[in-house]
């Protein structure tokens, strides 16, 4: 006897260790490709013989609905030595053997193996069909007599080995139908097609058609199965749920038990534990034990045993096997993250580069996502634009099974110049994991350049740049100069003297020039440095510039927006003084309101407001478009606007005058 029978273990093991269908759905219209292969060395003892090593190689490819798998067994054959009775030859006295071949040949060893298994599985919904082919090779070593004449009528017979090999393919077919947690399998095995023309004459492995029935309970996480064929009955189970503590990677444990139901009595038990080290490598260890009580077989039993191998291979003799190896998974498919888009809302169809910090903290929309899986879904929400004008990546989002959650969508806009022309872009919202991504939705977006203004006075604050080095240099120099001038003025008991001189210095060279008429709907605002360079601007340009210079030396400011009486759903830019709408500036003098007497202000020349420190201070209106005519003119024009729009027209009460602190 040689090492052997182990193949049977793995025939059973391979059936027992059917690859688990992962919890993955596929993107419609794409062909997913997944590849895995494994190297599983094993050490076995068989029928009390010395231990030996052998190796199983596995491979599996999944293409859409088809799964192809194969197994190759190296150094794993079973050889039986045949103890033949002595050959007795009766020679007649005058006899002569003229035809030695007429002596019946007797084999003294028989080796068979199943070196290769190939299977194809087709799955469609709840139905799957499986066909497999097992290659069977059998080598018989015959003892062929050879007569040699030594003397007259004296012969010697020598036995010389002669190899006799045949190969054939064994086919089996089965189908499985799944209904919720129940799967019923039925099929047939034992159909043989010879690959060689030689007849199988000695110890034939006769194929016999054998039915197969199996019932499986449970889901992908936990399963229990009963299988029956004509010669065996098996129970098996597997679980992944209880071991889900390896950082989201699921170890899998399988247990199995089988017993012979035919002529041969045997039992076997086994386990397999697969531990994913990461998403690619899985370490697999298994053990298998056969409890049989026969280490040798009678000629008749051996013939019956061989006949079964071609139909339904079974173990008979005691054996022990342990194995440890690795399986590698490569997934080139774009699998679906188990989240479904329920609804999406986008509040901004136009975004303005100047307000990029606003979009970083204020959602431009939201998506409602639902976890369709049975496990928590971890992913990141990503937004990409075709023109790379907007981007967003969320932190890690975890949705519990069956959880529906509304997730905000933000935007990060780069500070790029678009030459004043709005760019129409398309944003793609996707859920992304380390290796997978799923496109959820797209939406159109118009991106305006850094000088475009949405007409909302609140947005003017995004054009302020109090930290710009050039502006800082300008305003600090002006402030120093104003400080010197205020100090020289011996009559400057008025605490407003410094502010007055500063505003006069910074605004005296600015001229009001309206925006180009081509940008009627989308108004444009200059950044303070641009106004400093050009010395011109329209009212919001001058408000932004003056506010920036004042704020860069510590004054608080607010914008007063006077809007025309228009229908509520109509937006109008405030571009030209007195024509469409207008903005002017409120400047916090920093003087406590209790010291109003020192300023000499009249009742309508100032308002009392809280500053950022919560103090009630005197705020004065400044009409920035009149700064070129000096502080007094700008102040008196501001007072006039305030009186007309706030006191006379009750603008705040009616809603067409709005105030925004910068």
């Amino acid at each position, binding site marked *: 006897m040689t090492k052997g029978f182990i193949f049977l273990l793995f025939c059973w093991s391979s059936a027992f260790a059917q690859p688990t269908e992962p919890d993955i759905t596929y993107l419609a219209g794409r062909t997913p490709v997944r590849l895995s292969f494994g190297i599983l060395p094993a050490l076995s003892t068989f029928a009390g013989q010395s231990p030996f090593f052998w190796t199983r190689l596995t491979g599996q490819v999944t293409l859409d609905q088809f799964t192809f798998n194969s197994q190759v067994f190296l150094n794993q054959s079973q050889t039986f030595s045949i103890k033949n009775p002595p050959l007795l030859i009766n020679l007649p006295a005058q006899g002569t053997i003229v035809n030695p071949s007429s002596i019946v040949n007797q084999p003294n060893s028989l080796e068979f193996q199943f070196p290769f298994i190939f299977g194809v599985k087709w799955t469609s919904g709840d139905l799957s069909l499986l066909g497999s082919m097992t290659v069977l090779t059998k080598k018989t070593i015959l003892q062929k007599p050879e007569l040699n004449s030594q003397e007259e009528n004296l012969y010697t017979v020598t036995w010389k080995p002669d190899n006799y090999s045949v190969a054939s393919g064994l086919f089996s077919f089965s189908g499985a139908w799944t209904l919720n947690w129940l799967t019923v399998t039925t099929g047939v095995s034992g159909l043989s097609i010879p690959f060689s023309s030689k007849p199988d004459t000695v110890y034939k492995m006769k194929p016999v058609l054998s039915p197969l029935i199996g019932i499986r309970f449970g889901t992908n996480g936990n399963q229990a199965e009963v299988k029956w064929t004509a010669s065996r009955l098996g129970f098996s189970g597997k679980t992944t749920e209880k071991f889900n503590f390896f950082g989201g990677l699921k170890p899998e444990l399988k247990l199995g038990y089988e017993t012979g139901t035919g002529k041969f009595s045997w039992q076997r038990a086994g386990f397999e534990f697969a531990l994913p080290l990461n998403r690619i490598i899985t370490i697999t260890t298994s053990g298998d034990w056969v409890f049989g009580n026969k280490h040798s077989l009678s000629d008749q039993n051996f013939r019956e045993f061989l006949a079964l191998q071609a139909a339904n291979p079974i173990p008979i003799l005691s054996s022990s096997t342990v194995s440890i190896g690795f399986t590698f998974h490569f997934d080139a498919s774009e699998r679906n993250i188990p989240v479904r888009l329920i609804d999406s809302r986008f509040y901004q169809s136009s975004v303005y580069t100047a307000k990029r910090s606003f979009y970083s903290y204020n959602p431009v929309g939201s998506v409602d996502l639902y976890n369709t899986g049975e496990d928590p879904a971890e992913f990141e929400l990503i937004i990409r634009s075709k023109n790379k004008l907007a981007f967003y990546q969320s932190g890690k989002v975890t949705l519990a099974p069956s959880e529906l959650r509304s997730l905000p969508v933000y935007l990060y806009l780069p500070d790029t110049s678009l030459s004043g022309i709005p760019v129409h872009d398309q944003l793609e919202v996707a859920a992304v994991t380390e290796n997978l991504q799923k496109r959820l939705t797209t939406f159109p977006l118009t991106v305006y350049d850094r000088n475009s203004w949405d007409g909302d006075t609140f947005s003017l604050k995004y054009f302020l740049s109090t930290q710009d080095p050039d502006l800082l240099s300008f305003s600090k120099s002006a402030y120093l100069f104003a400080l010197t001038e205020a100090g020289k003025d011996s009559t400057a008991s008025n605490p407003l003297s410094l502010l007055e001189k500063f505003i006069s210095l910074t605004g005296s060279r600015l001229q009001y020039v309206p925006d180009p008429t081509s940008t009627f709907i989308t108004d444009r605002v200059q950044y303070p440095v641009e106004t400093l360079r050009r010395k011109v601007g329209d009212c919001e340009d001058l408000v932004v510039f003056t506010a920036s210079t004042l704020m860069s030396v510590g004054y608080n400011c607010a914008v007063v927006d006077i809007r025309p009486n228009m229908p509520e759903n109509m937006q109008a830019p405030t571009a030209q003084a007195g024509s469409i709408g207008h903005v002017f500036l409120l400047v916090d003098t920093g003087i406590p309101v*209790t*010291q109003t007497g020192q300023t000499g202000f009249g009742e309508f020349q100032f308002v009392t407001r809280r500053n950022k420190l919560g103090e009630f201070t005197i705020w004065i209106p400044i009409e920035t478009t009149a700064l070129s005519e000096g502080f007094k003119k700008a102040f008196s024009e501001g007072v006039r606007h305030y009186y007309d729009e706030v006191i006379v027209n009750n603008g705040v009460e009616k809603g067409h005058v709005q105030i925004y602190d910068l």
Partner: protein
Amino acid sequence: MYKSMIYKTLAVVFFISLIVNSEQASAQEKLWIKLEKGSALVLNPTTSEWIPLSSKDQVPVKTFLLTKPDSKLIVFRETTVYETPADGYFFAEDLFSKTRNELVSALVRIETSQLPAGSPPSSDKPVVGLTYGKEKELETKNDEVPFLKERKNAIIWFSKQKKYDSALLSIKRLMVKYPELYKNQDQVNVLLSLYEKLELYGYLYDESSRLMTQKTADEFDQMVIKWNDVAKKQLTGRRE
């Protein structure tokens, strides 16, 4: 083509709104006054200059009048004659009798006239941190409030004349402009009592509730709590 039509429509809307606005601005109501005795002045709202009134004169309705001691100034509005306090400082429009709705509307306009900041945009990233710098020299002198004596005189005079609406608007105008006066118990008491007299319990409750959050003297606190209780009882319909 459609764009052109939209622009034209917008232009027409703007034009009409401009006309309406300009008419509103220029159509501010004027009042005839008669100065029977002493002297009085009117504040030019745009130049902030005080202009002496002649014996018969016309003044804008939305400005302040200042009467000197022993003066007698009479204001005419249509066929109604209004007497005014001597040695007083008051807003001309506050003289007129008002319905309850007009009174509430006037209170709203007084509060919004100081351009209070809207609620801070919750959408902004909160800015935290300290501001370091030289501490300002803050002196809180009530006598820095211009015409404080005359303002108080006017309020007292209106109250004595049982013109509680005029008194309320005058003191409200004063305290909104100079919120430091909310720390003055007497001023606050006058304000709250006027709310009560005019049955403006909502205002009484709001103002007293807000004042209850600021730390003041015990007596002041008790007074505010008393007014708050009065407002609560009236608003909830409770009876002792």
